[in-house]
Every structure is written in structure tokens, then in C-alpha cells.
């Protein structure tokens, strides 16, 4: 926990400096007749972020904040395993949406999560994997008229559009 506190503060400090640098693409000073330049607001706030990071690091050295005193690990191996499995499968699902679309990626994700992470029976798994995409289709595409990404499966949906829209 103690190491993680310092690493996080350092990473955020670097990010703050990046934001400050990025803000200077627009004027950060006073423009006569126009007031503060477009970059001023984010620039000074990023400077504030940097100041906070420095103060967090100072408190880390002084062991003033609870995480900087904690001897517990930031993540136990068990937590890391679950975090990677869940966040990983979520990332994979979002990446797959670009290729096979929502109606391909979502059922795959549900099968993976419910069957393999949750260890539920195939009946529960398949019910969820079939019902949720169908419900999503009718709710979002038909009722809300918001098309969801379909990747290369797009042509498969033309007949459905003809029927319902």
C-alpha cells in the first residue's frame, strides 16, 4: 500500500505536468480585451493538481495519510487475479465490439463471465446470453432509434430493420 501510494502520486504528478504543457498550446495569460486566454483555466488547475501531488508525497514521507502507513499489500494475489480476469474480459469485449459488433461481443462476454467466472449452469448462461442482446436490440435500436455498433455483422441486420423500422 505504501509503495502504491507513492507510485500513484508520482504518476499523477507527471500527468499534471503533461496537462500543464498541453494547456500552453493556447494562451494562458491575459489577453487585452478578451480576458484570460483559453489555456489559462486548465493551466492553473493543472498546476493545482501538481501542488496536490507534491503535498501527497510530502505527507507520504511524513507518513501522515493512512495508505502511507499501511503495511497491507495494495492488492492481494487473489484480488489481482479477479481484477485481471474481470477488467481483461471487459477490455476484450470492448475491443471485439469494433470487429464483431455488440451482438457478437456481448453474448461472448456473458458466456465467459457467467459460465467460466461465475460457474453457473449452461441453462442460466445461455438464457442470459440470448435474452440480454435481444432486449438491448429492441430497447435501443427500435424504441430509442440509437444504432449500436455492429462491425462486419451489419448486413445481417438489414432484414430486421426492414421489419421493425
Amino acid at each position: 500500500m505504501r509503495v502504491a501510494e507513492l507510485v500513484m502520486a508520482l504518476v499523477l504528478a507527471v500527468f499534471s505536468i503533461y496537462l500543464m504543457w498541453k494547456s500552453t498550446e493556447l494562451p494562458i495569460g491575459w489577453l487585452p480585451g478578451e480576458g484570460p486566454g483559453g489555456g489559462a483555466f486548465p493551466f492553473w488547475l493543472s498546476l493545482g493538481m501538481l501542488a496536490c501531488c507534491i503535498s501527497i508525497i510530502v505527507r507520504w514521507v511524513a507518513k501522515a495519510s493512512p495508505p502511507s502507513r499501511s503495511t497491507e499489500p495494495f492488492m492481494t494475489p487473489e484480488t489481482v487475479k479477479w481484477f485481471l480476469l474481470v477488467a481483461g474480459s471487459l477490455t476484450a469485449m470492448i475491443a471485439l465490439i469494433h470487429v464483431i459488433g455488440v451482438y457478437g461481443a456481448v453474448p461472448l462476454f456473458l458466456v465467459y463471465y457467467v459460465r467460466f467466472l461465475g460457474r453457473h449452469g449452461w441453462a442460466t448462461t445461455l438464457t442470459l446470453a440470448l435474452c440480454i442482446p435481444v432486449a438491448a436490440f429492441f430497447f435501443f435500436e427500435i424504441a430509442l432509434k440509437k444504432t449500436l455498433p455492429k462491425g462486419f455483422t451489419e448486413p445481417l441486420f438489414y432484414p430486421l430493420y426492414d421489419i421493425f423500422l
Partner: protein
Amino acid sequence: METFSLLIDGFAIAIEPLNLTLVIAGVTVGLFIGAMPGLGSVNGVAILLPMTFMVPPTSAIIFLAAIYYGAMYGGAISSIMLGIPGASTAVATTFDGRPMALKGMADKALVAAAAASFVGGTISIVLFTLFALPLAGVALAFGPPETFALMVLAFATFIGLAGDDIPKTLFSIFIGLVFSSVGLDIISGEPRLIFGDLSGFYHGINFLVLAIGIYGIGEMLWTIEVSKGGVLMSKATVTFRRVLDSLGELRSSAKTMVMGSFLGYFVGILPAAGATPGSLMAYGVAKSMAKDPGSFGKGNVDGVVAPEAANNAASTGSMLPMLTLGIPGSPTTAILLGGMVIWGLEPGPLVFVNHPDFVWGLIASLYVANLFALLINIGFIPAFIGVLKLPFTVLAPIIFVLCVIGGYVPTQDMHDVWLMLIFGVVGYLMRKLDYPMAPAVLAIVLGPLAEPALRQSLIGSHGDAMIFFERPISGTIMLVAIVLFVLPLTKIVIRLWKRAACTNPR
């Protein structure tokens, strides 16, 4: 009198078939969301906001407000049955609710929670109705300096509540404000902070992306980590007879209910304070008011009644500054406020003038929602208990899918879905290190309102920052903000001073 006739008009809107259906649906959904461990009103409103685009704004806010309301009732259910607060707002309910359930009085605790929620809700809605017009009248006189001063006050209250880790709270506010400035500069129209020249950043970072990332994905990751162990259910027998008996016994708790309602309401009005501190304070006051403070924590029914009355009252209270001043009183109202912007309504006092149907429809719907929440809550207690048995490994993937689709729908851009995932994961890691996340969500909603107010004020005063202190209203607000900001610092100084005095007795 004007208030009364406007309220009647509001009722006409609230009982339209569509709106009435939405109130009932919202309350039911809210009850379930509130009852699930790890999900509270913020999560429900954030995840479901993208789905309200199909109905008019008035119906949309009625639905979301009903969810907010229902979740306040529902939070008590898992606090009592599982001993896990259904939402942070129900933390105080576990203190006595859980011991009552362990003693076999779960039904009594559930009925007490529902009745207290109803009383808290009713008192606060009446107060809300009476205060709304006068406050909006005052707010109409506000110019950019006053608006900016109010924003500063909202952030200052967060710092006042931050406890020990002020730098982390400040960091969270700053980063939210910086993210809100991504996109096209409102005054010069030039692109700003376009990271990696990705075109997705031109439309700015939608607050929903941050809100769903943190309250959807981040919260789920957090709950998966916490809930690995088995969940322990309490047994409850619920019969009509026992419900009536429990209601009868509640007469002795009437004083506590009224106290909790008023306290919760006024704490809820304070920007950024919201229902969680309100309910904790009510619990504390109930304990100090009681004749037998020793029985608190061991299953005293007043310990359930006070926080439940307060958290419902606070949820209504926090909508008052949202509607009248355009600043949110809680993280959930911050999201509702963002929704108002998406629906094309300018938050602030002018809403009362330009969209009276929206405001009064919402207020009247709260009365309706309060009644239905009570009925549905008592009627469905067995069903809620069933839902709590639903395994988390079924619930979590469904919520993840909702988050992904909900993140995509508002802008129809996969860029936002990726951004949401990043916010969720980073938010989860930061939360583990005690970085508070609510201020960042509040800041990204308020940023687009705060920055123009600041810049317009400074243009008007030719760069003189004293404009915020010279005008009477903004000066007063700034003063209060500064006091709130300095208060925790002085507390730290006093503590250090006392510690020094202890170690050096001479």
C-alpha cells in the same frame, strides 16, 4: 398561494399516464438498485440516464428522481438483511438494523425503515415546495460573479467534509475541472487539450463517461473485490399482522423521525453534503437524544428510524439547490444536473420561469413517488429478499454490459466507451488509495458552468479578482466558502497543537 396553484398544475403533469407509469417503474427499479449491495442511487441514475432520451425531459427527470427516491428506501433492505449497506447513504442503518435482524426482528426493522423513509420524504417535500419559489426569486438576481462564488462554495463544502486527506480531495476537484475543459474553448472556439489528436476529444469529455466509468465499472470492480466472501442472509418472517403491529409500535419513535427529517433536509440542501453525512448526523443526534444511549448499536429501533428518515429527507433537500441555483446538493443530483444540460434545459433559477411544467411536475411527482415507494416497499419485501439471493456473478456482467452500451449511446462513439473503461479502472485503483471520486464527478458537471462565469466576471472587472468580494451576495457566499475551506485546516492545527501540548506537559 402562487406556490399552491403551481403545485396543482404540477400534479396534473405528475399523474399523466406516462409519468405515473414512470414514477412507479422508477421507484421499483430504484428500490432494487438501492437494495443491491454496492449499488446506490448514484450508480442507478448514472447507468440509466442514457436510457431516458426517448421520453420528454419532464418525464425523464421524474423517472430519475423516482429512482433516486426508491434507492433511498431500498438501501435499508440490504443494510438490515445482509449487514452490508446497500449504498453509502444507508451505512448508518446497519448500526442498529443488523442487530435487530439478528435478533429475529428483521421485519420490524424493515417496516420501521419504510415508515421513517415515508415521514422523512413527506416532511422534506413539503419544505421543498415552500422554499423553492423564494430561493429561485433570490437566485434570479445572480450574475456571473455570484454563479462562480456558488461553485466555489460547492467545492469548499467537499473540502470541509474531506476529513484528513485534503490534498486528495482537492486533486479530485482539479482533475474533474481540467477534464471538463477538454474540447472546444467556449469563448475563443479554439480546440483545447486534444490528447493525441484524437477526434473523439473535440466534443469534450461527456460527464456521463466519467460518471458511468466511476460509478458503474469502478464500483463493480470494487464490489467484486469486497464481496468475494460468502453473503450471509438473515431470516425474516413477514406477515400482515406483524407489519401492522410494528407500525403501531413506531409511535414512540415519532420524535426521532421528525428530528431526522428536518436534520436530513437541511444537511441535504448544503451543496455536496448529501444524504450520507445527513444520515450519520441524524444517527448521532438520535443517540444523544435517547434516554438509553447504551442500547444503540444493539438493535434500537430509533437507530434505524433516524438515519432512514434523514437520508430520504436529504435526497429531496439536495434537489433544492440543483433546481433553484443550478448547483448539485449531492453526487446523484450532479448527474441529474448533467442530464438537464443534455436535455437542453439551462440549470438555474430561470428554469422556474422558462419551464414551470418541468419544475412543478418534478416536485409533484415526488409526492407521488413517496407514496408509491412506501406501498411497493412494504408489498415487495419478500421479492427484494429474493433478489438479494441473486448471485453477484450474474448481476455484475449484466451491469457491465449496461455500462458499455450506456457509455456508447449518448454520443454514439466508441472513443467514449474506451475512455469510460480507463476512468473506471483508474478510478478503482485511486479509490483504493483513498482518493475520493465524487468531487471529480461534481467538478466535471460544474466545470462548463464555472469557467465561463469566472471568465465573464474577470472580463467585466478588467481582471480584478476583487469583483467576487465586492458584490454583496457573491461576497457573502465567498466568505462562507473560505470559512468552510479554512475550518478543516484549523482543526488540523488545533490537533497538532494539542498533541504537542500532550507530549510536552511543561
